[in-house]
């Protein structure tokens, strides 16, 4: 595997890791306003309290890795999506500080304000991630100088908006499954009903988006003919999706959570397959696309960064696992909670 391909795959892994991990805590945020009383809202926030910032680091690292490995892509996408990125940053900041600040004061108005800001921030961030993926799938107006040639409104086409909704539906379901794992008693029984609903919502959007993609987005399947093994992942994806209702029915929540994680990983994988070998597909002229070769750093830098990644990743995985282990089990509101 050459270095450019290695970095393409590694970015994919980081993105999938981010989507799975931050996916559930964004999902918890999306669902936050659906519970009414203060204690349940605190349980929701504290279920993700110790882990959300670690999860968000996957995004930061994804951004850093893209900057290092494919600086042209980083520059083009971030400056091209300027307004969208500002909105995303706004959303991410809102949810981060909302969690930190919300329970610091007793006042009802104070808490309601941060509740809304937390939930709205989580929903908006998720939606914008979906819009970004949708735009990448459809291609963007990129000129021969590798600069974005459109306006913010060009990014809000129907397909990206649909993928935005799909992202919200997916993370909401993922978050419900996570919450079911972390709660008990009456709240957990209610979440059992939510799991069915959120799965139903996800399924509808998912089927619709799949049909739309196959019909309207030529990029999606362009690599399927040359690489028939991709069909294997299609099969695994269908199994993973089908497993979610089975797990809910059998009341095996961890199994369901793993299945929805696998679903998210598979969707990220399809996204990568659709793009390869490009990172940003130019809708004006395919030759102007930014691919893994013309947008990459030098071979030397890619090699150095690969070594850094190999050094760092075992540690990252080890202490991520350790943290989740320390904070396993049901949420108990205590003195150190939000």
């Amino acid at each position, binding site marked *: 595997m050459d270095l450019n391909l290695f970095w393409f795959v590694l970015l994919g892994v980081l993105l999938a890791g981010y989507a799975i991990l931050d996916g559930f805590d964004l999902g918890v945020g999306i669902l936050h306003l659906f519970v009414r009383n203060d204690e349940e809202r605190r349980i929701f926030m504290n279920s993700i309290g110790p882990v959300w910032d670690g999860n968000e680091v996957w995004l930061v690292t994804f951004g850093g890795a893209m900057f290092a490995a494919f600086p042209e892509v980083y520059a083009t996408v971030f400056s091209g999506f300027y307004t969208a990125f500002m909105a995303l940053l706004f959303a991410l900041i809102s949810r981060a*500080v909302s969690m930190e600040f919300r329970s610091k004061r007793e006042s009802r108005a104070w808490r309601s304000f941060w509740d809304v800001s937390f939930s709205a921030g989580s929903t908006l961030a998720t939606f914008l991630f979906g819009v970004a993926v949708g735009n990448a799938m459809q291609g963007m107006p990129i000129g021969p100088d590798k600069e974005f040639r459109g306006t913010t409104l060009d990014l809000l086409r129907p397909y990206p908006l649909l993928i935005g909704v799909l992202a919200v539906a997916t993370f909401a379901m993922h978050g419900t499954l996570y919450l079911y794992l972390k709660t008990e008693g009456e709240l957990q029984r209610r979440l059992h009903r939510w799991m069915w609903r959120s799965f139903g919502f996800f399924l509808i959007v998912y089927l619709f988006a799949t049909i739309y993609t196959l019909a309207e987005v030529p990029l999606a399947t362009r690599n399927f003919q040359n690489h028939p093994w991709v069909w294997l992942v299609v099969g695994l994806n269908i199994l993973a999706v089908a497993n979610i209702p089975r797990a809910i029915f059998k009341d095996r929540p961890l199994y369901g959570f793993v299945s929805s994680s696998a679903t998210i990983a598979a969707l990220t994988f399809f996204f990568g397959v659709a793009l390869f070998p490009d990172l940003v597909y130019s809708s004006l002229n395919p030759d102007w696309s930014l691919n893994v070769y013309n947008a990459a750093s030098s071979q030397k830098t890619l090699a150095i960064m690969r070594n850094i990644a190999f050094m760092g990743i075992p540690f990252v995985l080890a202490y991520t696992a350790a943290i989740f282990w320390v904070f396993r089990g049901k949420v108990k509101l205590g003195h150190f909670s939000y």
Partner: protein
Amino acid sequence: MFHYLFPPLTIGLGGLIVSLEALFLKTRDPQYEIAAKFWTKIFAVNFAMGVATGIVMEFQFGTNWATYSRFVGDVFGSALAAEGIFAFFLESGFLAVLVFGWDKVSPKTHFFAACMVALGAVFSSIWIVVANSWQQTPAGFHIVGQGAAARAEITDFWAMVFNPSTVHRLLHVLIGSYLLAAFFVMSISAWYILKGRSVDFARKSFTAALVLGTIMSLAALAQGDLQAKKLAQTQPAKLAAMEALFKTGTGSTPLYIFGSPDESEQRVTHGLAIPGLLSFLVYNNFRQPVAGLDQIPRQDWPPVGLSFQSFHIMVGLGILFIALTLVGSVLRWRGTLFEKRWLLWVFVVCIPLPYLANQLGWVTAEVGRQPWIVYGLLRTSDALSKAVVASQTLGSIVMFILIYALLFAVWLVVLHDKIRHGPDAVITPAGTTAHGLAELAGLRAGTGAGSLTHPDQPESPQNPQSGKQ
């Protein structure tokens, strides 16, 4: 700029929490545990702000400085990615244990987590300073391509990491951070002592911070001198601007203690100069001339007035910190410090000054590098995004000013609440630390800030040896 209000406290406070927890493990004195818990809460609020504003910084390179990103991605991006992999995961992962894990893990594991968080903060500063120092003194790279397609590529990774200014600037940043944290802790502790609340806790915190602050303010003096000597070789334009040195001259070069540089007239007015001192500081020799701005093409001059003033105020503050901490240390050694109420009040109100010094340090560093974004290679005005129009930038600036103003206000409110609430008592098995408990209970009752039987109170932490007391 706004972002940098938070990381220095994170770095410095991390170190302080580690030492308090170490003292707790060693002495088993619950006061140290109370202190560590209290400062951890402050740390957490601060950390959240640092993360939220830090994400903005990272994305900004792409959104607003796209041309810069294309030019330096090969080099600069590597340092940022390394920061993500080595520092952020470490910091954010173990922060969970530090903040939420008091009753989930043993004190030793908790101490380990505190060390990891502090280490992560230091790692993070290392990679950020590497990236920024490379902008100041680029090394270990070559330029590939022509014109708009030109970009820097790494040729020697370690030369890039240890470029001529990295080590000096890193030390300076760390010293500044620890100094800030020391003053932060001293300020709040002094306030508690003055109000007669949680006095034992406050004295222990104050003393720990005072030791740190004294060492760091002296270290800043020594290290700052070395750094300026280096600067004369690596970035003469910056040094000349910092000292408002317009003409090179022939013999010794004077040093302005204060003054008002006039760029068009090329002289310093209303100033006080000490003859030969700058020559001495740079070359250890009163006669050797220091290169002035006349050796630099006019279009490559940094803004002289701003560089001069921010640098001089920072140095003045540094000298003030030395004086304050030395006086404090002498009195503490004599045992009379906590009776000098006026001095404690000075420590209370001093808290904005180290923040100011840290900010001015960055102003000096960044303004002194202008008009370059990468010294000698890429001009700041050429580094902007081409796909972004002015109205978008303006919109985002206005938005961020509003958000940051709001966040800053909320941060102050929450911090104020935390400080007013004060440290929480550690519940130890009955009859063990009766003296400490009675004192704290009295204080709690006196302030009305919650009660010891608060429903949220944690179960007793494992504290097997506290019975010794």
